């Protein structure tokens, strides 16, 4: 199966899980925007699989934008870490797969997240604790508003922690709407470069660009700013801030799934 198909499957699982939980709803927009990045990372780059997931010798994935756990679960299902039943327990009462992910190393979830701006610090600690692994952190553009993110960014540059790769899913939106209207973090590339990071900007829906960026040899901590479309792949969700978190009804579910075929 090619990587494009994997990405579509991840999108379908995001929709399926978000629909299965009914009126509890899901974070569709930000989950769909990162689906292509997740497909390439898990399919082609990261040394993390159901066999090595509990071992010390492995790469690590840190979901800093924890509200998009739906995309992580969909990816973990696609790559065999969790079952379909587990995927569909998304947001069920007492589930191991709630709206914001909870640490479960055996499923490939290393960080309990949901509160934003905490993933990079945690990843840097992992990098210091186990130097032989690559650690990929998926952050959202909105969470770069958090001061804690910049504390971590400063530290990574100062200590030149090359094993950490930060991916920013830059869908240009946040909870209240467009980031440019709320709190734009203008020109992150320059800001991160000033903190001694290497920065590359890519189209977050171009599979070749994603793989090239993720596979890049690193002499500095690397930030990949991936320009993406919130809700990518489902016409009525694309670029629509309402779908940051929303309930998906049966009709919309059918339409979304048909568009992803």
């Amino acid at each position, binding site marked *: 199966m090619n990587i494009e198909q994997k990405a579509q499957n991840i999108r379908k699982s995001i929709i399926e899980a978000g629909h299965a939980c009914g009126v509890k709803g899901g974070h569709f927009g930000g989950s769909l925007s990162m689906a292509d990045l997740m497909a390439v990372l898990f399919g082609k780059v990261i040394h993390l699989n159901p066999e090595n997931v509990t071992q*010390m010798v492995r790469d690590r994935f840190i979901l800093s934008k924890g509200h998009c756990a739906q995309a992580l679960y969909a990816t973990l299902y696609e790559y065999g870490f969790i079952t379909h039943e587990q995927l569909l327990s998304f947001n069920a009462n007492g589930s191991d797969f709630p709206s914001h992910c*909870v*640490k479960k190393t055996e499923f490939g979830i*290393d*960080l*309990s997240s*949901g*509160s934003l701006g*905490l993933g*990079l*610090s*945690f*990843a*840097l*600690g*992992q*990098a*210091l*604790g*186990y130097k032989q692994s690559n650690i990929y952190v998926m952050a959202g553009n909105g969470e770069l508003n958090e*001061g*804690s993110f910049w*504390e*971590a960014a*400063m*530290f990574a540059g100062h200590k030149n922690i090359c094993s950490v790769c930060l991916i920013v899913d830059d869908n240009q939106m946040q909870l209240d709407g467009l980031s440019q209207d709320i709190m734009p973090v203008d020109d992150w590339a320059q800001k991160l470069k000033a903190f001694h990071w290497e920065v590359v900007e890519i189209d977050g829906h171009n599979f070749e660009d994603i793989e090239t960026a993720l596979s890049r040899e690193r002499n500095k901590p690397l930030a990949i700013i991936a320009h993406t479309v919130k809700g990518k792949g489902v016409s009525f969700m694309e670029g629509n801030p309402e779908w940051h978190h929303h309930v998906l009804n049966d009709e919309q579910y059918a339409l979304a799934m048909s568009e992803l075929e």
Partner: protein
Amino acid sequence: MMYDMQTVQHFSRISSRGVFGLALTDIEQNMPDLRVVVADVMGSARLKEFAEKAPEKFVNVGIAEQNMIGISAGLASTGKTVFATTFAPFATMRPFEMLRTQLGYMNLNVKVVGLMSGLAGGVVGNTHYGLEDLAITRVIPNMTVLSPADGVETYKTICVAASMKGPCYIRLSGTNGATPVYKEDYDFQIGKGIVLREGTDVAIVATGSMVSEALRASRALAKENISTTIVDMHTIKPLDTKLLQALFAKHRLIVTIEEHFALGGLGSAVAEYKSCFENMPPQLIIGIPDVFEKAGDYAYMLSQCGLTAPQIVAKIIEAYKNLRGGGRES
């Protein structure tokens, strides 16, 4: 460690935070997985020697407490035993959410050490006082909360904390020159309060720097014919409820003393537990009043907050006399 008189005096001279750095430096060579993360307090925590001896085990994140806890959590997730430290208010309030979400929620093996807690900051003022650290750390599930009474107990606390699993907050109070409570070795176990003196009328349960004040108060109270049991409650969570039950059964008045807001700390923890039962003795909670006092040196602040031994004695005498039927046989 030999706790001879020379050591006890040395511990008193360097204060609890100095003992903390010393203890970590001593145990470092037997702990390959030990890591120490500081937020620009290497000197204050007496960790310079540690950093020189074991640079690979030492991380200074600068003045960035949120990042300190995040990095500590990440380190712990790779199997390391991590001590993270800065001054108590900055170790607990600035990164409170990280303590709760990254240490408590994920149950990670990080020991957060709050230096110079209580009023020990003296003239540096309220920004640097640790007035609410017990209150905010003890509400976090999985978190063990420790508050050693003096240098010897600080040393023992650090060693025991290093060998336990799970998140822990260690509150270091008192200043250099503090009166030692312990002058020889003794059995220290997390969750087991220590009865330092046995009496019949009033049980005084103290923690941290206030244990030595409680002992002083006890001697003065004896002259007033009030017999006191003195307990060093070095563990705030899990609370030693077995010992508390024994104290409740044998005494007419329970007194808690802490160099912490009277709200939310040891006194509250004891009262919460006691409230579950009928016919319990009343409790006098002695702690820092619910105001921000104007700053002064440590002795001045203790006096302003009513935490000197004579002030404690006066409060206990008054409370004891006001018991139903007056004090014992009076």
